[in-house]
């Protein structure tokens, strides 16, 4: 199968079940909401090393936020309910509570809830106050610029992490340009994020390593400088590879993001130096979700 003259491998991306949530962060201005969002989604590329995968889903206009101020929606994913609850507490506590003028709300309606404000409230040292408005409960925590308002609990749900595809091409600039197009397209897909820097990962990994202490190591089969040294997956002209990893609140969201990303990556055609699109998997034995590239693009 070819898309705009670019080969699409007959393979699939293998993804895993996770727990995910959406937070809405508001502030006096959109740039300050983004500052809080970038801060809390920093060092959140992979659950392996960060315990959390997160990204900014989109900006919100005042009409979309609970307090009528500009805001952002942030998606966060972890391997379990407890891990997600702990990460939320730590990251909201360190990156949102601390950020000028912000407030934090749950952005997911779900019966399954984890504590947020009720664990952060102790920062108020006894001066915190609960406030119920409608059906939702908040904590008002006094801080030096007024009050930090944080929802008592936030909804979480089952989610999907680890959807992916790889862009293979002749040159690194060409592959990077294609990956940037993909991310720009994927940013318009709701309920999905690409957690790596700029949405793109260059250090794709394989499971295990020759070192006992290291559970994941470089994906040598796709490392062009090792072609000829290891059992390489790369063709003779494939000199650069970039991967895009996708987490979503549902398999449909991950599939939609992959579809949008691959189509955008291929939009420049083979003339752009892009040669092939493939995906990472573990033979289908580990992940609960499989996204066949050719089926996605059919």
């Amino acid at each position: 199968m070819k898309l705009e003259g670019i080969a699409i491998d007959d393979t699939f991306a293998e993804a895993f079940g996770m727990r995910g949530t959406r937070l809405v962060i508001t502030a006096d201005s959109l740039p300050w909401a983004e500052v809080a969002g970038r801060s809390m989604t920093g060092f959140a590329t992979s659950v392996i090393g960060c315990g959390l995968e997160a990204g900014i889903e989109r900006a919100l206009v005042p009409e979309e936020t609970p307090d009528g101020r500009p805001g952002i929606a942030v998606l966060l994913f972890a391997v379990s309910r407890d891990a997600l609850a702990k990460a939320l507490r730590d990251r909201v506590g360190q990156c949102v509570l601390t950020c000028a003028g912000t407030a934090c709300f749950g952005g997911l309606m779900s019966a399954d809830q984890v504590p947020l404000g009720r664990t952060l409230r102790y920062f108020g040292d006894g001066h915190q106050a609960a406030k119920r408005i409608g059906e939702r409960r908040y904590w008002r925590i006094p801080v030096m610029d007024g009050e930090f308002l944080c929802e008592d609990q936030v909804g979480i749900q089952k989610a999907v992490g680890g959807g992916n595809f790889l862009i293979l091409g002749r040159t690194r600039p060409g592959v990077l340009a294609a990956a940037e197009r993909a991310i720009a397209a994927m940013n318009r897909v709701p309920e999905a994020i690409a957690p790596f820097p700029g949405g793109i990962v260059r250090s794709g990994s394989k499971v295990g390593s020759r070192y006992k202490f290291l559970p994941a190591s470089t994906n040598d089969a796709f490392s062009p400088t090792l072609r000829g040294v290891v059992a390489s997956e790369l063709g003779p002209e494939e000199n650069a590879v970039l991967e895009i990893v996708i987490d979503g609140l549902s398999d449909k969201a991950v599939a939609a993001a992959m579809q949008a990303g691959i189509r955008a990556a291929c939009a420049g055609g083979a003339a752009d130096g892009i040669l092939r699109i493939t995906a990472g998997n573990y033979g289908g034995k580990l992940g609960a979700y499989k996204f066949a590239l050719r089926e996605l693009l059919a």
Partner: protein
Amino acid sequence: MIRLTLKAPLPHRIAADRLIPERLAALSTREVERLPLALGNRPAQVADLFHVEGTADGAVEIVGPCRRVDRIGAGMSGGTITVRGDAGAYLGLGMRGGGITVEGSVDFGAATALEGGMLRISGDAGDGLAGGLPGAVRGMNGGTVLVGGSAGAAVGQRLRRGLIVIGGAAGACCGSEMIAGTIVIGGTLGADAGIAMRRGSIVALGGVDRIAPTFVDCGVHDLVWLRLLRRHIELLGEARLAERIQSLRRFAGDAAVVGRGELLLPR
């Protein structure tokens, strides 16, 4: 909908506890007509006092000058009651859910010991709105009360949870011994508001007659939670009142007790 139309002004008070949607739901019109009521100290039946028409579908309408009909909607947990006129004392006593709309004014003790649901009064409310029963540790414990006009003394005494919105003025001792919850007053608030309050918020948009000396001025603030409150009150259909909720001056108190409550007043 079952419509109960008062045949004539009542010579004595009656208690309308039985006339709630969930009790009427399983009854025919004849059975509703035969329900017992006490007219003063004399036994009576619904048909002696009301014309009954319609079928039960979770909605009840009471038509007429009902100032002597007490305890309308007491204990109800679902459905709706609409009163086309005034209502008597203890409207919505211990109500747990559903909605009551009164197109007039109500007497003493509306929303006493309210646990949930929505009570909407177009006119004025008497003393003791959304308070507790005598001797009770707490008053209203959930739900929403909206009063278009003014309210008497001791609104929300020992309020534990829920929202009370009054478009007009409120009498003395509003929010006294308040435990938590929110009271919003559009008009002037009487003296000694929030006296002995432990927690909770009283938003007095028309100012207050006198602030107790056990409340301390914390300055003017644009609080995020007030933005949520404004939006919530807008959704309740009180947009003109809601738009007045802006930056307010915060007085913390009552320092004579726990002191974690607040009076929020115009700047």
